[in-house]
């Protein structure tokens, strides 16, 4: 018997999560803009969130561990976005661009 909250098999959720993750990953790899990369990171984090929630409801245990993890991830993502965007803005102020390929100040 396949169980899910609304009769939807978990495979669907996992597939959605995987697709979302791959999109994020692809974005991570190809975007030149630091903003774009931060967006991609958000996508991957949310792909993980979908998995947490899906497994959380699928296990049918009297717990909300999946949701709690998702909340943590959202919090983490917010913090990460805040710090990341602050860095990006500062870089922009310094160099008038956000192209990660050109950010070579710390290269040897």
């Amino acid at each position, binding site marked *: 018997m*396949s169980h899910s909250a609304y009769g939807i098999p*978990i495979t669907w959720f996992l597939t959605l999560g995987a697709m979302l993750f791959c999109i994020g*990953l692809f974005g*991570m*790899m*190809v*975007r030149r803009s630091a903003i774009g990369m931060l967006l991609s990171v958000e996508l991957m984090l949310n792909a993980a969130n979908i998995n947490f929630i899906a497994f959380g409801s699928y296990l049918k245990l009297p717990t909300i561990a999946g949701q709690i993890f998702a909340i943590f991830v959202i919090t983490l993502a917010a913090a990460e976005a805040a710090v990341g965007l602050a860095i990006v803005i500062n870089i922009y102020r310094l160099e008038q661009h956000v192209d*990660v390929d050109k950010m*070579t100040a710390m290269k040897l």
Partner: protein
Amino acid sequence: MIEHAWLIPLLPVIAFGLVLLFGRKAPGNGAYVAIAAICASLAMSLAVAFQWFLGGASAAHNGLYSVTIQWMPVGSQMIDMGFSIDALSVVMLLVVTIVASLVQIYSIGYMHGDPRYPRYFAYHSLFAAAMLTLVIANNVVLMFMSWELVGLTSYLLIGFWFERPSAMRAAKKAFLVTRVGDVGFLAGIILIYLKTGSLNLFGDAGVFENLTRLDVIGPWGLPLTAIAGLLLFCGAVGKSAQFPLHVWLPDAMEGPTPVSALIHAATMVAAGVYLVARMYPVYLADSSGMALQVVAYVGAFTALFAATIGIAQNDIKRVLAYSTVSQLGYMIMSLGVFGYVAGMFHLFTHAFFKANLFLGSGSVIHGTGTQDIREMGGLKKKMPWTYWTFLISTLSLCGIPFVTAGGWSKEEILAVAWHTNRVVFVVGVLGAFTTAFYMFRLVYKTFYGEPRKHDIHAHESPRVMLVPLVILAFLAIFAGYVGTPWANVFERNLVPVLGHHYEQVLENKLAGMHHGFNLTVFLFATGSALLGIFMATIIWLKPVLRIEKLEPSFGWLAKLVENKYYIDEIYQATIIRGLMAAAWLAFAFDKWVIDYAIVNGVGYLTRLASDLWGWFDRTFVDGLVNIIGWITKTTGSALRYLQTGVAQHYIFLLVSALVVISLAVIAGHIREEAWIPIAGFYR
């Protein structure tokens, strides 16, 4: 006092240290310190002598007082040191301290103004200490040590004026020639120790009590006792300048004249005679009698041989030096013909008159500034004190009977020789004649006639030099009265030193000898001396016999004698040349075989091996290291392209790797049919 006799040599040692270190600040530039020490030793020696001979200590101690302490352990053997007082030591103590103190006092005048004045007195003190140790040592090791020490001080004092090359050479010669004899002495000590097992002379375990153990037949069929005696005699030959090792003593006259008087006439050279006398039981224990015969003939030969050389010498000190060699030969000869007492007696009297002669010659040299008797003459009026003391000692040396000390001792020697060995007796009489002859030649040439060189302004020496001369002249007359044939105190005291057993042996050897005055011997001895004086007088004082007339017939002989029988030249040609050749051979061996073949060869081979090894190292070891480095470098530069610094490239790599790994894992699961549980989720 006898218990404290060890202080006698100790005081001069202390003086030596003090004068050497603080000489320039000490009173009298160090001279007074040294003289105070030696005079204290003299006082103590006199005290010991009085206590021993007159105070009955000799009887109380049964003729020998000996104290021994442990010195140093060598393996399981303990070497002792100690001193002994017996008649022989006491006589020697007296001789050494009397002459040494007088000579040191005399040196104040003679050495006045010398730049190394304190050092001179320091050496004198060291000499006195060593000599005094030698005469009271009761142990052969201590004897040998002090024996070498007197040799050292002799070397230092002969070469005292080392700025003069001749003095330097003479010092070296003296040291090396006496060393030849000392090797024999040391070998003798070792032999005696091996057989008797003792280094101490006295006591139940001592050498003299155990001489029977030495009575074994050694190499060449010689009894070991004779070999031991001969080896010890080698030391005496070196030190007492007997033929063939006499060559150093005349050269030793390069030292200051007081040194010649003390060391090379009165005391140190007599140490050889003392050694033979001290070890006399060894010679008496030699039943073959061979050792003593060698001693007798070496002594007799030297006595006559050196006396003849003395005739033709023109250096005042050299004449006296050959006279010393000759007189030492007399003593040695006397010991060789069982004249144990006579030999020591002659040593005793000779020390005084010969020291006096040397000090007198020093006074002459001091007054005239020359040593050549051809340049002197007519000094009798200008130096009366020197002349009279010199004459007294000359008469004593010639052996004028009844009034001089030398007369008594020489006659005693001839008396013993008359009894035991007539050949030696004849040689002795000839020696006595020759001695009188050359001594009066010396006196006439020095003190009589007219001054032969007019730029010499002779003057009498200062009083500090004359007082010792007078005292010694006094002794040159009166020292002999202890040993007159009628009341021979000397003999009575000296013979018991041998111990009961050997005293008996000596008695037997001299059995039948006429004790007391011997008219035949007296006539021979006195006649030869007077004849010698007469001959000298008619040749040099009242030239009845002109040397020029003798020249054609005796010219070659004169030349031979004047050149000392070419002994030095013979040594130069044989021994020294031989040694030089040996040294050259050793040098060549060293240079070509050791240095060139072995050392350089090993060096060359080592270098060759190192070269090979170095090549291997550079090629293979370094090559390996370089290859590793090269690989690392190449790999590194290849991998460098991965390290772009672009984060997205890393992510790409990461994802690629993840994909590959995931595919591999999935493929693995599929192969293991692990997909079935996963597939179970579909159900």
